[in-house]
């Protein structure tokens, strides 16, 4: 049975596309056949983050309008087997996405795929509503910052009422919090909401904490999802989050400030002395 995941946040720029890309790579590299769909019609960007922008021929809206088949529009990922990308259209037509059209595409994908990751646009307009409508579970991407937390709470309200599952009384979709751009140093200084603060306010299960990291910009610069950079803190944090999503118990990392190299040196000496 296919599982549909929506990556959402309300607020823009918090890391939805970065998360969608890394999550899709993570699931596919576990052997699950995965499709990742860009719902941000008019502002296509998932293709850039996935590094396939020059291979886009047909898009989501072409498929909905019957101008191309799904197989023609799906782009096979260069690095990860079992991973396919369905890019957004660059049309300015706001009504290009329809409920029936999205349903048909998801139905067809559902016949052969294990996971479908829906990269939601920011805001609460049609694209965002359709991205969440058919979802079985939601990853709510949040920055430890007031406007992002508030918008995430708004999205949680929509997720509990404006999805197919909710409307048909089939129970709530599962909600997961992913805290991104987390800076343990600023938390320690008292200038950033802590994980415990955000957890207390939003009160949904925590899927992962992605530290603020140079690796994320490097990854988007080069068009390779950050999870592929297995040396990086952010990449490892995404790998952990995917494992947790699949039900594994993984301890949380990168919640403490990295200690200074001098400190580490001294603690090493102390250990030696004992």
């Amino acid at each position, binding site marked *: 049975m296919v599982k549909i995941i929506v990556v959402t946040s309300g607020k823009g720029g918090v890391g939805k596309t970065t998360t969608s890309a890394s999550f899709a790579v993570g699931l596919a590299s576990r052997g699950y056949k995965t499709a990742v769909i860009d719902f941000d019609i008019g502002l296509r960007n998932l293709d850039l983050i996935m590094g396939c922008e020059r291979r886009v021929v047909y898009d989501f809206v072409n498929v909905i309008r019957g101008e191309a088949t799904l197989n023609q529009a799906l782009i096979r990922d260069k690095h990860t087997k079992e991973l396919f990308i369905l890019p957004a259209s660059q049309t300015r037509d706001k009504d290009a996405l329809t409920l029936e059209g999205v349903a048909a595409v998801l139905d067809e994908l559902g016949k052969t795929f294990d996971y479908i990751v829906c990269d939601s646009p920011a805001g609460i307009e049609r694209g965002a509503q359709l991205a969440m409508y058919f979802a079985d579970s939601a990853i709510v991407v949040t920055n430890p910052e007031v406007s992002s*937390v508030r918008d995430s709470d708004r999205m949680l309200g929509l997720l509990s009422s404006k999805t197919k599952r909710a409307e048909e009384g089939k129970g709530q979709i599962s909600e997961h919090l992913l805290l991104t751009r987390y800076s343990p140093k600023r938390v320690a200084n008292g200038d950033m909401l802590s994980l415990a603060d955000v957890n207390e306010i939003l009160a949904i299960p925590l899927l992962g904490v992605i530290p603020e990291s140079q690796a994320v910009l490097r990854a988007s610069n080069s068009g390779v999802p950050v999870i592929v950079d297995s040396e990086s803190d952010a990449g490892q944090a995404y790998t952990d989050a995917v494992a947790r999503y699949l039900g594994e118990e993984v301890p949380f990392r990168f919640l403490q400030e990295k200690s200074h190299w001098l400190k580490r040196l001294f603690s090493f000496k102390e250990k030696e002395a004992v």
Partner: protein
Amino acid sequence: MNIVSALSKITNRFRRPQESAKFAKERLQIIISHERTERDQPDYLAALQRDLLDVIAKYVAINKEDVHVELERQEGCSILELNVVLPKLQAE
């Protein structure tokens, strides 16, 4: 005077700034709990309140703030609570 301000500038430099995350958390808790109660109310509640106000205003001079409409959900049923504060009755 100049010395005092110069000194306070220097001491300020060493003082820790206020921990702003605490304010962020407090403000969020207040606004989110407010928005959550609004979220659970059906869309027609505002319109209902307006219509009720119009009807009552036909008979009694009341202000917008004097009519409170609230919907409380309990298991199995919802209770629509209407609270109208009437002005002091004058002996006719």
